[in-house]
């Protein structure tokens, strides 16, 4: 192993770590993003990061055929973004409708159903009906 190999392989490992962090942060924006357009932008960015990963693998393995794969992935990502832009134009609502916040739904534990029902129970036969429907 020569000095050039050591320099190159250490740089490649560092770049893998950095790209992995960037990838996870972008995935977080896809999950969190409050509107549809935010998620589309983050998906476009994910394509770019994956192209970077493919380039790193091309250097590491020596198969330069990976360049063609990266170019075709870039083409697919471009076409997907154009299609998403048309979709936003035809079907979007300007981010006005309340979208489900997936991140909050994943992170917060579900509220205890029994205690809430007990608190809400006021009078009448309503809780019994609800319990029957739940079963």
């Amino acid at each position, binding site marked *: 192993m020569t000095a*050039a190999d050591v320099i190159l392989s250490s740089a490649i490992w560092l770049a893998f770590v*950095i790209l992995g962090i960037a990838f996870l942060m972008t995935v*977080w924006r896809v999950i969190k993003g409050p509107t549809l357009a935010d998620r589309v*932008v983050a998906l476009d960015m994910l394509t*770019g990061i994956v192209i*970077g990963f493919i*380039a790193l693998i091309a*250097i590491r393995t020596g198969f330069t055929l990976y360049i063609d794969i990266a170019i075709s992935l870039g083409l697919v990502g471009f076409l997907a973004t154009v299609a998403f832009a048309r979709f*936003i134009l035809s079907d979007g609502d300007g981010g006005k409708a309340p979208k489900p916040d997936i991140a909050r739904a994943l992170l917060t534990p579900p509220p205890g159903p029994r205690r809430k029902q007990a608190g809400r129970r006021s009078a009448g036969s309503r809780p019994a009906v609800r319990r029957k429907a739940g079963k």
Partner: protein
Amino acid sequence: MMDILVAVLTACLILAGAGFALVAAIGLNRLPDIYTRMHAASKAGTVGSGLLLLAVGLHAGDLSIFARAIAGFFFFVLTAPISAHLLAMAAHKVGYRLSSHSTRDELKDYES
């Protein structure tokens, strides 16, 4: 000696590309509204992947492979502004709001 020079240059390109991708991801998470997030993702992200492709071409040391890497780089540099512009126009036309920090919306004057 030439070997080490090429390796150092390739390592610099790799680290610069990964750094640009990280900056783009940080910007994507920190910026306030969709238009500024698009600014971070489409510029810094494209330069990041383009620099990594250039590193592949430089590392191979072959003219045809280097030409293919350059072609891929120019392809990304040409298509990223188009897709970002389409997305921004669609989002603005549908009515996505700018953040409260922005002072001016020139596209609104253009559309009306």
